[in-house]
């Protein structure tokens, strides 16, 4: 009965909103859920930067890491860089936002040069699998076969096979091939907070490499922009962004563990460690919801997650997670803008988060100098860290002191 009343209320609300659409258009996706108490708030999404940042302006000297670790500029001049993928021969492919480019970065051992593989795509992400570069934008999937040997290869358009839903907001991509050879793709909620317009959002899916055999493996996932597989259990762990406009300190972003497929991670009814949503309500909002391994700070914008399996870093880092937090906009004082290290038991218990790379944010002035987004491990065990704001990639290495 309660469900029926809720449904009825929702239908009336939809009807009402349609009836008054002419005079009161719906707020943009990022403003949904913004209460009247926040009407005077000047908070707005932080500007991306489309121009290349000169090396002299990169914040490399500001970065602070634990003793023995060093960050240096690995490459630069690729505005908007996000997730990276490495080919067998060592080419690094990087997706970007804003200009919608995919860059190919070549390394001759001394210096890096880049070229644009494809541009004017809608926020493309990349993965490399069996000699092919996979590029997935919000509305397009392309495969570049043998691109290392044939730099100008025409892409195979796989878009139709993937059946991508139309909404764009939060549907910017992060893609990875899993240990099972399947392509894992998130489909974010097309709003800040809402009942889903259709059921094809707020979920994580996997496909065969050609787009066939689609399977939804998790639901209630608002906006995951990073995941990796536990080196021992092979379970997928993922980050998820919490909703906005509920105040500076709630609800927190999440680090989740998917112990099996078919789990519900709470959106839109239940957030963080079990906070029922005040706008989109449901009886027993958190019942049956898989709660996070740990919360990661409100509005921190948790991005790339990487389990460290290399041998360069000290033993205590083995199988620990590095997570980049791009940094907040919906918060009076900025937070995040760093990389943290998270150690947890394989079953998700006892998660401990400690700072790893800081210095992107000046807490006194509230200014930021970069936005760390993704991590990739190199064969020597060093980590590459991309900075979306400056279009640079840093190399993080360790040497015994």
């Amino acid at each position, binding site marked *: 009965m309660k469900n029926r009343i809720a449904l009825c209320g929702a239908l009336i609300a939809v009807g009402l909103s349609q009836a008054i659409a002419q005079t009161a*258009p719906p707020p*943009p*996706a990022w403003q949904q859920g913004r209460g009247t108490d926040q009407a005077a*708030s*000047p*908070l707005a999404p932080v500007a*991306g930067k489309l*121009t290349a940042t000169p090396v002299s302006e990169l914040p490399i000297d500001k970065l602070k890491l634990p003793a023995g670790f060093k960050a240096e500029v690995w490459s630069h001049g690729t505005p908007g860089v996000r997730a990276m993928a490495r080919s067998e021969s060592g080419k690094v492919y990087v997706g970007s936002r804003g200009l919608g480019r995919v860059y190919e970065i070549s390394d001759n051992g001394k210096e890096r040069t880049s070229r644009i593989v494809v541009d004017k795509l809608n926020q493309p992400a990349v993965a490399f699998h069996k000699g092919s570069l996979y590029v997935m934008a919000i509305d397009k999937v392309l495969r570049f076969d043998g691109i290392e040997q044939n730099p100008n290869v025409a892409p195979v358009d796989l878009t139709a096979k993937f059946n991508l839903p139309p909404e764009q907001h939060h549907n910017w991509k992060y893609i990875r091939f899993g240990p099972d050879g399947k392509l894992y793709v998130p489909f974010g909620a097309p709003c800040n907070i809402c009942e889903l317009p259709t059921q094809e959002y707020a979920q994580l899916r996997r496909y065969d490499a050609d787009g066939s055999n689609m399977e939804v493996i998790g639901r209630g996932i608002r906006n995951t922009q990073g995941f990796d597989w536990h080196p021992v259990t092979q379970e997928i762990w993922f980050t998820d962004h919490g909703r906005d406009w509920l105040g500076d300190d709630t609800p927190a972003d999440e680090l989740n563990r998917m112990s099996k497929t078919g789990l519900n991670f709470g959106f839109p009814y239940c957030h963080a460690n079990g906070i029922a949503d005040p706008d989109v309500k449901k009886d027993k909002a958190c019942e049956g919801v898989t709660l996070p391994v740990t919360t990661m700070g409100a509005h921190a914008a948790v991005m790339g997650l990487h389990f460290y399996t290399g041998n360069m870093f000290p033993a205590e880092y083995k199988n620990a997670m590095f997570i980049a937090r791009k940094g907040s906009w919906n918060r009076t004082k900025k937070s995040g803008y760093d990389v943290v290290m998270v150690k947890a038991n394989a079953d998700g218990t006892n998660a401990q988060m400690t700072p790893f790379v800081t210095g992107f944010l000046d807490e006194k002035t509230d200014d930021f100098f970069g936005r760390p987004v993704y991590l990739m491990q190199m064969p020597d065990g060093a980590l590459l860290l991309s900075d979306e704001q400056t279009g640079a990639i840093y190399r993080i290495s360790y040497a015994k002191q």
Partner: protein
Amino acid sequence: MRSSRAEKIKCRVLAAAALLFLTSHAAAQTASTPAAPPQVALCTACHGPNGNSQIPLTPSLAGQPKVFIENQLVLIREGLRDIPQMKGMLDTLKDPELVALANHFSAQTPAKPTGSINQEVFERGKALSAKMLCGSCHLPDYSGRQQMPRLAGQNEAFLAYSMKQFRDHAGLGRDTVMSASLFGLKDNDLADLAHFLANYK
């Protein structure tokens, strides 16, 4: 209408002359001069003295936020924002030159609006802007910040045109946030907003 067309032709001629001047004087440029970037004359031929435009559909650049100008110049150069009048103009410019232009125009003083105000339209626009929370991102004095442009004192015809573009043609290089913000507004709503913002002092 005729005078605006004549202005447009005049500005294209001036721009061409400025381009010629630039090409012939390129060698004389010194890297150390902190003065206006060499391309400024080319820009101001259409965008007006100090970037205060006198052509209705050409926007003023004076006092626009630096990041906003930078990003728009890149979008136009890369063909993500299609503006026929700007086609080819930025092809040879590298990012540092675009940044220098953005620095220059963001530091110019925007001219005070001098057009005649229709009080009724102005008030309607003011009320609508308050309701739509325009000042939330563009700031309460509509001076803009970061990626969000200055609206106060911008050319009225350009504002109306630009908002229609956002409302009707969401696409690559166009901000979906702004498109969503204007969703469902009628032409006369946009005209009210444009009149209010263009005359905001």
